């Protein structure tokens, strides 16, 4: 029933990744939506790697330095991302601790690994099927922005609890590096052309 699928590229054409319009080979800009049509290539993959490395580099200080500085009655305590999660658990807020742990630690690390895996799978043989890799990419794309939760929490706490109270809260430098790390990995995922996942697929040419 299903005839063999041919890709636009195999037919010597260029498909637009934004709107689907099909163009003759050599077209540079999409006639329908104005998107860049230049062929997906190794150069694009290099951008994915570059942003990913940048994201990894700033992720280190994000975990080492304090995210939050709480001063109460002349005493200042600093807490890192992980420290904040532990503190929430001491207060018995396991659900919220779970959300923060998931958003700030599990998601970023899983995202780094997923992007590395997807980028490698373009040039190498991997065991995971195209469908699963396609799904994995969409999960990465969807979930990345949720890591920003902790940065927002810090901002809200800092604005809520100001100097005129007994306690004051200030954002630490980790808030900046964490926000950058989330942004860099988002750019990395956005630079990844998902069609590369399928390009390696040996579709029957006939």
């Amino acid at each position: 029933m299903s005839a063999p699928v041919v890709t636009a590229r195999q037919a010597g054409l260029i498909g637009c990744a934004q709107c689907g319009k099909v163009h003759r080979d050599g077209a540079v800009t999409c006639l329908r939506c104005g998107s860049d049509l230049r062929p997906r290539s190794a150069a694009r993959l290099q951008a994915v790697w570059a942003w990913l490395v940048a994201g990894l580099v700033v992720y280190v200080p994000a975990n080492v330095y304090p995210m939050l500085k709480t001063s109460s009655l002349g005493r200042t305590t600093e807490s890192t991302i992980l420290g904040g999660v532990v503190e929430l658990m001491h207060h018995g807020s396991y659900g919220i601790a779970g959300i923060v742990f998931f958003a700030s630690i599990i998601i970023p690390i899983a995202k780094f690994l997923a992007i590395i895996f997807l980028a490698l799978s373009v040039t190498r043989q991997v065991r995971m099927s195209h469908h699963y890799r396609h799904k994995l990419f969409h999960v990465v794309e969807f979930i990345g922005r949720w890591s920003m939760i902790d940065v927002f929490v810090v901002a809200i706490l800092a604005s809520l609890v100001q100097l005129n109270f007994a306690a004051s809260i200030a954002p630490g430098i980790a808030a900046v590096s964490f926000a950058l790390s989330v942004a860099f990995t988002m750019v990395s995922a956005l630079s990844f052309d998902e069609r590369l996942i399928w390009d390696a697929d040996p579709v029957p040419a006939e």
Partner: protein
Amino acid sequence: MSVHTPPKMSEDSARDLDSLIACPACDALLRDRDVAAGETATCPRCHSVIEAPRRLAMTRILMLAMAGLILMVAAVFFPFLEVSAAGLSQRSTLVDTVRAFSGGLTVPLTYAMAALIVVLPTVRFLALIYVLGPMALGWYPRRFAVPAFRVAEALRPWAMAEVFIVGVAVALVKVAGLAHVAIGPAFWAFVGLVVVTVLKDNFMSRVTVWKTLEARRPA
């Protein structure tokens, strides 16, 4: 969407190209067709949704974007949260929240926060109103409709209103031991804004909007 094996591309195949569509997710070459409202066209190769037009989608998106814009104004200017502890109370608006990062090295973060939770969602609403307003009324698209819709789509992952709301929930729990927190009207405006955004993005079928923009382009 039916699978299409392309015919031999002859030199005069410009018309043929218009009858084809390449799956935006996997590049499969398919025969393009008009997808009826309420129907969902998926790619036979990667199963991504290519088009899912909904009845009156343009009008609905337009209304939702306008509602979102009004809610955003309320969210920015009304008090967001009110904290009281030891007889003192302090109101903070969304602007105060954004300004929390105003010391030293955290200044750039102030701008980033403002962009993610206020500026980018607002720009998206405005762009969608500009693009879809004339379309919902059956007029020609405006002059910069194509770049405006491209910007709206490009900003989609960066508009983080819903992430911010979850952040607020977490912050409320964290601060519960220190002070009493009351939720202001701006908070509810912001929750409404998130609901509107999610509904709007559900109605949106990107490929359909692009095809409509192209079809209605003045000759």
